[in-house]
């Protein structure tokens, strides 16, 4: 080997070693869902664009993840460089200065392309503190064949009276077909996500302007009475333990006439590989109260945020910019098909005719997200923001406790009045302990 060639090889090795030595490793904490898993499969593109950054994934079930990252960020633990968090956490954590504002994300990033209601939930004092990766609202999914058999037509804006009538006519317990499936499992993100949205549509609110709980109001009474009537008479057995997955399984196997839940469910129930009723699914907005126009749509987004405690903020920012960019959407469309791109975040996606054709539920999803008003969720004045949740740190505990009370009422251990009284008492107690009004 000539000395020149030897020298060249030596130089190359040094460069390679140098590059390896300078490669930064960032740790990304994320949830287990289809979109996130898909991203992990497309990391070759990121590695090619950023050979100096290595990504390590920590994937956890969302409740475990929430506890895990909350502990880490509250104690300044610095274990993660990128966090997957919901729009519930973002404003609360940003106010604590726990998150890095996402500025200077690159010329092609186009944050103005984010859907306005989604970006609003992630913005504090005019600064974006997390980048939306995927967003969803709520809508009504129903069986077109069963509705037709019942002799009914879905109105453009169904109200709860119509839903009750349709549920009654679609129910055929002998054939194990239940008119309606709704969340019953206790939890602030389970039954309370649905019930808070439903309460908003009925004109109810969690607190008045002085933070006084409102479960003793007629609006909450109507909400819970309607819910219990629907589920007791036309719902599946054991509904008090049903969450998203259980209802999805019931709907996909033809056991539900209607299901009001996250818009993301549309892609599952309309997929013929997973759903036996894929050809007979219709979509409509979440119901309103008779004569009302508030659908109470919820708004949930999974977002990528950078903790202020991260020591590798530049690398973390590069990753967040890549994962939430328009280019990433194009990358998913190229490798996985356009119907599989993460929905609900960018306006440009809903202007793409190819996507609108591939995803028949896209227009309804967009309409639901745009109708979600997280800044004033109820018809009445409220001192809080949020749609299916109240954006205060105490809500997780209070929401889950109230959820347990309502789930127990669904299971038949108490009636609506008892459940509302219990919810009022416990919420009053917890809010007083937490020092409200502040």
């Amino acid at each position: 080997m000539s000395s020149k060639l030897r020298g060249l090889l030596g130089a190359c090795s040094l460069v390679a070693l140098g590059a390896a030595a300078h490669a930064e490793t960032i740790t990304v904490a994320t949830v287990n869902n289809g979109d996130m898993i898909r991203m992990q499969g497309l990391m070759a593109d990121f590695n090619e664009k950023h050979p100096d950054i290595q990504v390590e994934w920590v994937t956890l079930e969302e409740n475990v993840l929430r506890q895990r990252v909350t502990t880490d960020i509250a104690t300044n633990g610095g274990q993660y460089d990128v966090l997957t968090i919901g729009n519930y956490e973002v404003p609360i954590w940003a106010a604590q200065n726990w998150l890095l504002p996402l500025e200077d994300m690159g010329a092609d990033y186009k944050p103005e392309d984010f859907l306005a209601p989604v970006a609003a939930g992630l913005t504090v004092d005019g600064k974006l503190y997390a980048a939306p990766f995927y967003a969803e609202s709520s809508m009504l999914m129903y069986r077109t064949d069963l509705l037709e058999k019942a002799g009914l037509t879905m109105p453009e804006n169904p109200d709860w009276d119509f839903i009750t009538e349709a549920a009654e006519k679609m129910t055929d317990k002998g054939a194990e077909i239940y008119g309606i499936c709704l969340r019953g499992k206790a939890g602030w993100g389970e039954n309370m996500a649905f019930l808070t949205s439903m309460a908003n549509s009925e004109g109810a609110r969690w607190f008045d302007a002085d933070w006084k709980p409102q479960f003793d109001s007629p609006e909450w009474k109507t909400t819970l009475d309607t819910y219990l009537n629907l589920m007791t008479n036309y719902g599946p057995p054991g509904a008090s333990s049903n969450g998203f997955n259980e209802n999805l399984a019931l709907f996909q196997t033809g056991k539900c006439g209607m299901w009001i839940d996250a818009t993301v469910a549309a892609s599952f129930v309309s997929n013929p590989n997973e759903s036996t009723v894929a050809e007979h699914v219709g979509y409509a907005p979440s119901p309103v109260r008779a004569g009302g126009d508030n659908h109470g749509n919820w708004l949930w987004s999974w977002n990528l945020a950078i903790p202020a405690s991260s020591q590798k903020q530049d690398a973390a920012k590069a990753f967040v910019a890549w994962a939430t960019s328009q280019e990433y959407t194009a990358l998913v469309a190229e490798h996985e098909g356009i119907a599989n791109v993460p929905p609900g975040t960018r306006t440009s996606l809903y202007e793409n005719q190819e996507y609108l054709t591939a995803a028949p539920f896209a227009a309804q999803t967009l309409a639901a997200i745009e109708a979600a008003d997280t800044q004033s969720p109820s018809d009445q004045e409220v001192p809080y923001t949020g749609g299916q949740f109240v954006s205060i740190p105490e809500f997780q505990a209070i929401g889950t406790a109230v959820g347990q009370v309502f789930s127990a009422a669904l299971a038949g251990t108490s009636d609506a009045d008892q459940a509302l009284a219990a919810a009022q008492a416990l919420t009053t107690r917890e809010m007083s302990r937490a020092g409200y009004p502040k």
Partner: protein
Amino acid sequence: MARTVTTQRKVIVTAIAWTIAIAIFFPILWTFLTSFKTEADAIATPPKFLFFNWTTENYTTVQGRSNYFLHFWNSVIISVGSTVAALIIAIPAAWSMAFVPGKRTKDILMWMLSTKMMPAVGVLVPIYLLFRDTGLLDTRTGLVIVLTLMNLPIVVWMLYTYFKEIPGEILEAARMDGANLTREIIYVLTPMAVPGIASTLLLNIILAWNEAFWTLNLTASKSAPLTQFIASYSSPEGLFYAKLSAASMMAIAPIIVLGWFSQKQLVRGLTFGAVK
């Protein structure tokens, strides 16, 4: 006079025993079957028991998505490490409590057990801060320490009850023959208590293997054991039941094999002392 056991009684007792055994084993069997189903079959109603399209796709997917061997190796080091460390501390402690009890020995034993009554989450933040400041977050050493401390009360209690069964006179004889304390514990006490120590060891390994609070909360990407491997396949929004079952089977298989091969020792140990 020996009691006669009628054939009818034998049949009834056997049937009851089998029923209980199947009821206990059924969730594991169901997880095993689900791990070979497609996601659609996993949620089918009525449930499909044996007649479905068997597939190993879930195992392939799980293997492809996660670094199983890293999690497995972490589990082995953490569970074996914490068990050995707990035994090293607990054997002398149990010896002293069993053979030279003081006025407050019973109180100390009760106090040790009382530490198990506090919910772990109550001390999460202080321990997290300690780990952060000592650089033990996401390290196997940190988990070995915390699991050792967590299981120490149970290990001391079990060994204490086993040691109490051993006549003190034997140790006294060893002492008269000139054995010092270390020799007495290593050459006289330990061999006599082997069944008890072995069952304590096995039980502690199982407890440490299955521990899912500290192992999830104090780890990130480097030292996470199989508990995190399972948690990464659970999801409230999306169907992952079949994959979750495959991940669960891969996580519990090693401990089931260990339990299967050591069941004689385990049962002998458990009936020897504490849990008679």
